[in-house]
């Protein structure tokens, strides 16, 4: 018998001919208290992102270009090859930038597929404004634009918005480790700086556009 058949036969023997299958109780919360894009969710997302040491800017759609220009001023910025989100002078990932090229830029600028306010999580799915995974991994800074209608409250809502057949990356703050005495330290192999730009209607944005150091 080959390994596959043997393992499958062992499993059949182990579980017996008619294993009992009990239904899975799914009475956990799926939707949150707030509809996607609600002002409360934008505030919660911003708070949770900051809690894990991301930098958060809030702006309106009309201010987005100016905000991005301000945030990335003086940086060499890489963007996906056909992204609608960009800044003047950005380097497009076309033809695909080498790992060394990506290591050499100051930041990558992308959109996202969705975000979860409860956990402060941004999801990327390789869409046109996000690009391939290496692009958002190798540069040391990731500037990520999140539009209000992309923000849901709960983890189930987040996953149900995504297509598992696409390569997905869930990001909750900059890279971090808890490996030294189980204390969290930010900044290891992934981007050490995560800058989230949360775009919402006027009146939801606060007044916190300011220049980041570094």
């Amino acid at each position, binding site marked *: 018998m080959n*390994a*596959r058949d043997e*393992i*499958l036969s*062992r*499993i059949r*023997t*182990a*579980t017996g001919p008619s*294993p*009992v*299958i*009990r*239904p*899975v*109780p*799914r*009475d*956990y*919360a799926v939707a949150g208290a707030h509809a996607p894009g609600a002002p409360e969710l934008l505030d919660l997302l911003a708070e*949770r992102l900051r809690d*894990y040491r991301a930098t958060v800017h809030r702006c309106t759609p009309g201010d987005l270009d100016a905000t991005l220009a301000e945030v990335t001023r003086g940086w060499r910025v890489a963007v996906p090859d056909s992204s609608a989100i960009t800044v003047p002078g950005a380097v497009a990932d076309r033809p695909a930038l080498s*790992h060394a090229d990506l*290591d050499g830029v100051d930041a990558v600028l992308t959109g996202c597929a969705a975000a*979860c306010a409860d*956990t*402060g*999580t941004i999801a990327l799915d*390789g869409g046109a404004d996000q690009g*391939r*995974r*290496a692009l958002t*991994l*190798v540069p040391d800074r990731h500037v990520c634009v999140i539009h209000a209608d992309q923000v849901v409250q709960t*983890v*189930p809502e987040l996953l*149900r918005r995504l297509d*598992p*057949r696409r*390569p997905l*990356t*869930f*990001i*909750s703050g*900059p*890279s*971090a*480790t*808890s*490996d*030294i*005495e*189980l*204390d969290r*330290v930010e*900044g*290891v*192999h*992934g*981007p050490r700086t995560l800058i989230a730009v949360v775009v919402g209607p006027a009146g939801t944005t606060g007044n916190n556009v300011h220049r980041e150091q570094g």
Partner: protein
Amino acid sequence: MTTFLGMPHAPRGVGQLRGDEPFPAAADKALADRQLRRNLGHATATIRDKRARAVAEVADWEQLRLAGEAIKAATMARLGEHLIELEAAVTARGGHVHWARDAVEANRIVTDLVRATGATEVVKVKSMATQEIGLNEALESAGITAVETDLAELIVQLGHDKPSHILVPAIHRNRTEIRDIFLRHMPGVDPDLTDDPRRLAMAARAHLRAKFLTARVAISGANFAVAETGTVTVVESEGNGRMCLTLPDTLITVMGIEKVVPAWTDLEVFLQLLPRSSTGERMNPYTSTWTGVTPGDGPQEFHLVLLDNGRTAVLADEAGRSALHCIRCSACLNVCPVYERTGGHAYGSVYPGPIGAILSPQLTGIEDNASLPYASSLCGACYDVCPVRIDIPSILVHLRGEHVDARAQRALPSPEALAMAAAAWTMAGPRRFRLGERLLRLGRLLARGGRIRRLPPPLSAWTAARDLPEPPAQTFRQWWRTRPGDGRR
């Protein structure tokens, strides 16, 4: 009690599921190491608080636990079907699926795959399954260097040490010890390196960066794999996982067969349970999922190795099979009074703590890890925190029964096991610990003449209830002697 003849256990002589000595002897040494106990005490106290806060935020935590438990049980009931579905989905998306009956076969498959690429160095994402099968050693004997890229694994690898915790394999090291390991063993390290955790993390970043950018082959484990879609998941923090899963040309993932989950929606349960239980975060910094091969994005060659290595033997035991439900969060280690005092090395297996005490003996067969089911006070803290509600205390009792059966001739647990049970009970709480301290002197008196006829209360209940087989006084007294005072925090 049934013995499942013909269902092979994890083979001897390969991998890391068996210690060099029984738990009591190994724990004896650990208990004498004050630095180790301080490091463990500090780290486990930190993480216990964080976890409690993260869990308290979630109103539907118990519902999530019940769902997690039920999903795992339902998965095991139809494990074969789910694996076949997973295989079909991964294959349809350009991946290759391999089946490995045991550690030897898995090591051979991976070694051959790496050889076929011509690479002599691979980068690795922390993975319990590859530690379990001793993959690094197998690769090394084939002339292939495996570079561990998780910070804690790197600390363990550079220090020629062994992992002692599921999540934080270097938990037994404090920052100063880590600095010293880096200074001694990390090529090109800044000689002025301090023990500031941030500086240490930066040193690891600098050390591994070039390797990530040039690696051609990566090896990973998997936290979950979704049968219906073929989607494999790795949950991590540092970004070393993303580096390995994204930059090389070839990715080889070794995964225990019990890691499959039926549906994508099942992840909405586990991605809530796991981060809060393991690092005490709302969500870990990075989770990656991929489905076969994506043209133009990430490795263009993907191999998934499905590993048995004793798992079907665990599955065959109805009373013990829920050990396979474990999502490796390590919460049960962090709350265990025995783990906190002995550390992970004493368990001899890559799976330490309460989960190790029930999983390792089942994977290897009880006779090869006979003392582990006794490495517990049955206090139940592990069950309370387990995100998938594995009833560890009941399985421990069940396995003790198996052990007794295996020794049916004498109809009693081994003296070692009895000594261990007593010590574990005593270690269960500071109050008992202090009580034990006082009993120590008494115990020595009682043990005079090499026999313990009757133990003082509360252990007297035990000796009264059964005919205590003269435990070798030596072992017993060693136990009592190693622990006075030091355990108090």
